[in-house]
């Protein structure tokens, strides 16, 4: 671990065991499990925002829960840089659903004050209240909102409260799990702007998880792309968009419809997302990859280093700088 490295994930895997029936438990049969995260290695440097993108079932949310400590990895190691006193850094997390992430029986003041009280960051009622007011103002709400309950706020306002609560804990590391996916476009825009200001002003180190490539491009310094539990590519944000190295990254960038009305072509990725419980052999993407060869079906691709400090898992060094690199979807319509 170098001095700059804030968080290191070393070959982290997480297997969800299926709930066994009584009979299966008695017979001691191993029913196996779903490998939600498979052998992920990743480093987050101090002051940097790393984004993780992928479709449902790719393991990005599981990874967030592993990093936050809500779950233990099945194997591998997650290490934070410790400070001089050997203390692990303070964490906070912002969740996708602004409705379930606030306790409906607490006032906003109590909700935001909770991390302050737990970490004893301020002492005395007045000092805590002053800090809560300050945080509410910082996230664009009014100190008068402190006495209200979460039910009185809209989704976007609730997400602001969640951000205020996270900031109240004066986190050295912030995990954002789809923080704007439940919000409308104009509200999402406001929240992203708020988060960007905070990134700039507070020099936060963070992990930003989303399924939306455009959002992650705005927010992250480096981006990791996940597919069926594996990290298939990781690169600096601009590099990833300009020169993707993994075919999945290229296809994912093209698949989301942009607002260009002159070119109305659609770019579906062939085939369907396989069931994460039974990932394909070899390269997990081979069932949908336009470049797949025999080797992809049988051998898992090695982890390769790209010139710009990025990483990708593909047998080939493909040139994927522009969308034309992909051969016309051989048979995009059928699964």
């Amino acid at each position, binding site marked *: 671990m170098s001095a700059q490295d804030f968080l290191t994930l070393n070959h982290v895997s997480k297997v969800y065991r299926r709930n066994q029936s009584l009979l299966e438990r008695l017979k001691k049969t191993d029913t196996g499990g779903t490998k939600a995260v498979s052998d992920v290695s990743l480093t987050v440097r101090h002051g940097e925002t790393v984004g993780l993108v992928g479709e449902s079932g790719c393991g990005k949310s599981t990874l967030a829960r592993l990093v*936050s*400590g*809500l779950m233990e990895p099945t194997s591998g190691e997650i290490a934070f840089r410790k400070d001089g006193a050997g203390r692990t850094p303070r964490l906070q*997390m912002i969740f996708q659903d602004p409705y*379930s*992430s606030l*306790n409906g*029986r607490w006032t906003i003041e109590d909700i935001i004050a909770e991390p302050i009280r737990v970490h004893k960051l301020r002492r005395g009622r007045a000092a805590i209240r002053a800090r809560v007011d300050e945080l509410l103002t910082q996230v664009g709400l009014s100190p008068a909102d402190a006495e209200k309950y979460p039910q009185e706020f*809209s989704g976007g306002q609730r997400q602001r409260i969640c951000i205020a*609560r996270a900031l109240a804990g004066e986190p050295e590391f912030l995990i954002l799990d789809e923080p704007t996916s439940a919000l409308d476009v104009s509200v999402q825009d406001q929240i992203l702007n708020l988060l960007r200001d905070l990134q700039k002003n507070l020099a936060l180190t963070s992990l930003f998880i989303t399924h939306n490539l455009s959002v992650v491009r705005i927010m992250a310094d480096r981006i990791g792309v996940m597919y069926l539990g594996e990290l298939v590519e990781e690169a600096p944000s601009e590099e990833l968009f300009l020169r993707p190295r993994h075919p999945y990254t290229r296809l994912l960038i093209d698949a989301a419809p942009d607002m260009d009305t002159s070119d109305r072509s659609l770019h579906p990725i062939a085939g369907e997302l396989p069931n994460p419980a039974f990932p394909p052999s070899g390269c997990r993407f081979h069932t949908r990859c336009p470049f797949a060869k025999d080797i992809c079906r049988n051998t898992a691709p090695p982890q390769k280093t790209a010139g710009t400090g990025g990483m990708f898992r593909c047998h080939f060094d493909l040139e994927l700088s522009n969308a034309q690199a992909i051969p016309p979807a051989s048979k995009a319509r059928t699964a």
Partner: protein
Amino acid sequence: MTPVVNTPSVPAARRSRLSKLLRAMRRAPGPTFCAFIIFALLIYAFVTPLVSLNPFEFSGMSVMDSFIPPMWMADGMPDFPLGTDDQGRNLLTAMAYGMRTSIIVGFLSVIIGLVLGGSLGLIAGFVGGKVDAFIMRVADVQLAYPALLLAMIIDGAARAALGAERSVTTAITIVVLSIGIAFWVQYARTIRSSVMIERDQDYVSAARITGRSNLSIIVLHILPNVMAPVLVIATINLGIAIITEATLSFLGIGIPVTSPSLGTLIRNGNNFLQSGEWWISVWPCLVLVAFVVSVNILGDHLRDVYNPRLRGRS
């Protein structure tokens, strides 16, 4: 987006509790009426013993006045508006004493069931795994027996253990415990299922990441969110507990006939139902029915009001 009404997030002017209550009462006249009946019966049960002699003590009864019918009947006397029983006890005061015992037994047994079932349900739901499996299997086994039968078994066992000589207080304690234990399962199951839902909510995860201990998460976060449905069940169970006590007393295994409860009064009056002195059992029956039905209607109403599914989340 679905064509479902979204409640606008108007920062509602905070109404005072009183005006909120008045508004709720106007919307639900039935439950409000029941609340008044409960209130009146409570006053009756707890004020009467303060101003009159206990008809179950020697000074409170006179055999001379036995079997006097209610005052509006031919042989009625204004001193005994609802008549007297075989021992000459004034039924109006006797019932107040009886109700007082019944209500105390009802409340205490509900509290015992609630505390016992609530804690076990919290532990089962929060810890999960083997602890959960064990607690819930015990609950399943207990559910196989009717609560009344169970109360009788516990009551019988306690009596056998304590021997013959026992005071009225011990008898009441045994009844309270047996009813409480007989009813814990319902609380445990309700709390457990609510806890399992709340446990996985993001606000609990947030508290955990912040560094809260399990105990403070349970007490500060989960408990306030799972109490509403249980309190409603408790209201309904209050009625059931009173009936159970009355049944036990009626069967002669609850509170001894020498001390008053609604059950013992009904049981006593039952002996004279055939011989025409109907009032001895009918009045306590009516009071019991009025109280239990009112409590149930109010409980039902509260369940609707506090049902989170009936309240739009936003």
